[in-house]
């Protein structure tokens, strides 16, 4: 019993019980009415007092601002032909934050889009590094059928974002790789550098990663559009409410001649080469080629591991822009410029030096690779490329009369060009030597310098500028972005135009007067003038000299000489100045000069040049694209089979 035993209450009768029931039932009813009133009050509080607040939240739920990535400005050549354009692109991205089951979603996408194992591995890696709403690209360039298949299943695939966007397209592929660079999805550093600009994480948006695409980013980017759209909780679009269209980026007019650029790139073949052609009248860079190159299309789509691996292990360095980042001893190609310095120093051009093939200076013996030339004067020393003449005359003129002139012609000069990095090499002098190596200038330093060896290092662009300055007598500055104004270049200070004419005549005889490149006269009426160069990359020992210098063909590729050819045309009334470099191509006349001949021919007679190229490409086994594709397939197949992929062989 629970009741108080000692003091029992009156017994509960049925009547009392009924009264208790009525009392309690009424109490219960009142309590329930109270709860109902409380609920009504609560509803009033939410729906009326806080109506504004919740209305905004509901708005926020359903209205999404979507940035429309702007179309990138085209990059066009001097005639308006597209070097980089945009094409419509169906793509699929993953939004990491909305992804609930990555494995299932990736498996489903693999099935729908036929992703390769390599692509899936790449995707998983990207996903592991990605954070928040930054989209991770899954696939681009999808067919409409693939795109539609993903769009249809989007409700079952949270975190998957199919999108119709614009993708960068480079019609000439690898031929313009080092010129334009490529675009890519912004990385975390870029996103943070722009203060978390939301555009950078918009799906499909890309920024320039290299070359002109990178340096001209602000001009090319444009302004994003804005779409206010109504979406469901699953991100499905209900309707567009208001759209502000994007403002496409401004086109970038370059000085490039796309036809020439492509021709030169193709003409390089499998060689590791760089070539620049400059219009001497205004400094326009007509072609800017570094080969082998990468295809900026595949780089912009996100390169696979296999491709990257293949490129980074290629001894020809397809990822390095040799035009501005490659430094080489110029070898004999510096002789025309040295000759100008000699004339300026008062050397009599008729004075002869007797070339006996070897010449002793103190304890050292210096050689002339082309000799013996016998008694030789300046004109012939250029056209026949006599080293011993330059050794002796340079000593006679003195380093103090040569190095300043070399700088006037652009040696060691850094040009204002829109490329992310350029290396500008060295033209040595006694001050530099003391600063750099803490030793005094010796006469053998002058001797080495006179034939472009020793400490001398230049890049191919500087070489082309040097030619342009010899040709015009003006301080030509190269430019790659076309401007309406014709630049006015100052005449080269303290350089006698007569001396330049002398050198030009000698250069013409290199090709047309029985000189070192006489096999490479142009097959057109116009004459080409030039200078060969062979830059040693190794030291030839006394022992090797004694037993005979080894031929380039017997050396490993990396030990062979660099092959140079600088030239201008027409020799009579120069318009084009050019420089060709073939890394480890051997003697200057053997690799670079034939290329120069074909390219210069192209400038005057396209058909003839194309015929020559067609024959060569047949010999090489197809066009540039075909060879690159074949090589990528070989590499992928070897990797798949687990064997070491074959090194590139075409250039050997």
């Amino acid at each position: 019993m629970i009741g108080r035993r000692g003091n029992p209450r009156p017994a509960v009768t049925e009547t009392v019980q009924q009264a208790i029931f009525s009392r309690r039932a009424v109490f219960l009813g009142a309590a329930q009415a109270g709860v109902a009133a409380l609920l009504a009050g609560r509803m009033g509080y939410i729906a009326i007092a806080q109506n504004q607040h919740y209305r905004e939240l509901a708005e926020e739920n359903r209205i999404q601002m979507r940035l429309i990535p702007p179309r990138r400005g085209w990059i066009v050549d001097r005639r308006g032909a597209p070097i980089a354009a945009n094409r419509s692109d169906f793509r699929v991205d993953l939004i990491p934050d909305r992804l609930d089951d990555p494995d299932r979603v990736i498996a489903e996408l693999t099935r729908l889009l036929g992703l390769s194992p390599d692509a899936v591995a790449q995707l998983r890696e990207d996903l592991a590094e990605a954070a928040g709403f930054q989209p991770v690209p899954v696939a681009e360039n999808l067919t409409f059928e693939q795109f539609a298949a993903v769009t249809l299943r989007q409700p079952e695939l949270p975190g998957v974002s199919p999108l119709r966007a614009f993708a960068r397209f480079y019609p000439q592929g690898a031929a313009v790789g080092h010129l334009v660079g490529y675009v890519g999805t912004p990385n975390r550093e870029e996103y943070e550098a722009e203060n978390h600009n939301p555009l950078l994480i918009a799906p499909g948006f890309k920024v320039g990663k290299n070359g002109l695409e990178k340096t001209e980013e602000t001009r090319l980017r444009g302004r994003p559009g804005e779409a206010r759209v109504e979406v469901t909780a699953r991100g499905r679009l209900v309707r567009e409410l208001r759209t502000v269209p994007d403002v496409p980026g401004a086109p970038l007019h370059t000085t490039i001649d796309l036809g020439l650029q492509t021709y030169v790139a193709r003409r390089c073949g499998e060689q590791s080469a760089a070539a620049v052609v400059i219009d001497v009248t205004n400094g326009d860079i007509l072609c800017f080629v570094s080969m082998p190159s990468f295809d900026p299309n595949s780089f912009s789509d996100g390169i696979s591991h296999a491709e990257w691996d293949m490129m980074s292990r290629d001894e020809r360095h397809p990822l390095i822009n040799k035009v501005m980042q490659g430094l080489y001893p110029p070898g004999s190609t510096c002789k025309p410029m040295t000759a100008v310095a000699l004339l300026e120093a008062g050397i009599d051009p008729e004075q002869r030096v007797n070339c006996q093939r070897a010449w002793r200076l103190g304890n050292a013996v210096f050689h002339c690779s082309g000799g013996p030339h016998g008694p030789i004067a300046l004109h012939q020393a250029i056209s026949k490329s006599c080293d011993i003449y330059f050794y002796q005359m340079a000593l006679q003129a003195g380093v103090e009369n040569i190095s300043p002139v070399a700088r006037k012609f652009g040696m060691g000069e850094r040009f204002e060009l829109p490329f992310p990095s350029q290396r500008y090499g060295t033209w040595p002098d006694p001050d530099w030597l003391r600063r750099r190596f803490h030793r005094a200038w010796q006469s053998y330093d002058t001797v080495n310098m006179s034939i472009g060896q020793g400490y001398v290092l230049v890049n191919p662009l500087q070489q082309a500028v040097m030619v342009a300055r010899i040709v015009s007598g003006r301080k030509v500055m190269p430019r790659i972005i076309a401007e309406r104004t014709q630049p006015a270049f100052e005449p080269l200070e303290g350089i006698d135009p007569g001396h330049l004419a002398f050198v030009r005549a000698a250069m013409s005889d290199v090709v047309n007067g029985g000189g070192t490149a006489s096999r490479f006269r142009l097959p057109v009426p116009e004459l080409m003038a030039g200078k060969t160069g062979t830059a040693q990359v190794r030291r030839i020992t006394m022992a090797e000299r004694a037993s005979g210098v080894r031929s380039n063909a017997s050396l490993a590729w990396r030990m062979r000489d660099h092959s140079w050819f600088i030239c201008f045309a027409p020799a009579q009334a120069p318009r084009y100045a050019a420089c060709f470099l073939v890394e480890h191509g051997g003697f200057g006349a053997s690799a670079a000069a034939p290329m120069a001949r074909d390219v210069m021919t192209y400038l005057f007679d396209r058909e003839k040049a194309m015929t020559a190229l067609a024959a060569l490409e047949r010999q090489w086994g197809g066009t540039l694209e075909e060879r690159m594709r074949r090589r990528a397939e070989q590499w992928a197949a070897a990797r798949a089979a687990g064997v070491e992929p074959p090194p590139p062989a075409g250039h050997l």
Partner: protein
Amino acid sequence: MPRLPGPIATLPWSMLFIVLALTGFGLVVLYSAAGGELTWALPQGVRFAVFLAMAIAMGFVRPAFYKDWAFAAYAAIVVMLVLVEAIGAISGGAQRWLDFGPIRLQPSELMKPAIVLAVARFYDMLPAREIRGWTAIWPALTLIGVPAALILVQPDLGTATMVTLGGVTVMFLAGVPLRLFIGAGLAGAVVAPLAYFFVLHDYQRQRIAIFLDPERDPLGAGYHITQSKIAIGAGGLTGTGFLQGTQSHFAFLPEPQTDFVFATMAEEWGMIGGLFIILCYALLIRWGVRVALDARGRFERLAAGGLATTIFLYMAINLAMVMGLAPVVGIPLPLVSYGGSAIMTVMICLGVLMSIDRQNRLDPRRR
């Protein structure tokens, strides 16, 4: 008034009008929740018709029948609850229902009216003088405790709470001393925190934690409450208009047709619609309480009071849940929410209430 045939004329029309109004409005809301289609409204309308017919039929049965069978039905449902547990244990997954061919029966749902009837039957048998004794307490507590425990381990906190409250309400109405309720309330205040940590499942704990602070996980488990409040709040006084709610149509609101149907309604009909539903329920329950007060027998009184409270509990727990005043426990809004279980339970309640009402009105003392 034209003469209607006797059985029809004696139906409790005032209550039926309320039920029809409430269900009719519910069907309109379901039509909108389905995006302007009959996907949910049509089957629900059919179900309603079937269960209403059942309730009316039940109304013609004498209350004595329910009194006689109260314990048997209770025992059968407890057996079913044990069966559900056993099947769940064997198949290795939690289960709340039994499959009988086309019908999928949730015994826990049936327990809601059954517990009321069983406890009412118990106090009906108990001599009046023993109401203050121990014998008035422990059998009732056992009657309530066994099914409540079985339901709690399913796990279904919402239904277990409803069953317990339904039974306790009958104890209260039966006249069990008030101090026991006060004492139990105080004990509950002590036990609840302990239960939170040692009895509840993780997901239940999480639901309660999120109910206390929905904003701490607005995209995860707090999503339900947050979105429901947004829907109700965005509705304002008059709502966004029929078929115009974005919260439900764009799938921000989870379960827009079942547990959160009130939020779906509130977004489109606003405070006005909400008050209408609350008012309908208040009138329905007032009718139930009237039936209880009018009833003659002790069983009838207690059963009617308990059943009316069961209907009230449905409404109160569901509304508190969608307005963020109670954790999300999965209690639908009967007659409005899509689904058969709740409507069946409420119709059983109404059926028994109608039976008691009929007896009240046929009472010669009143005539």
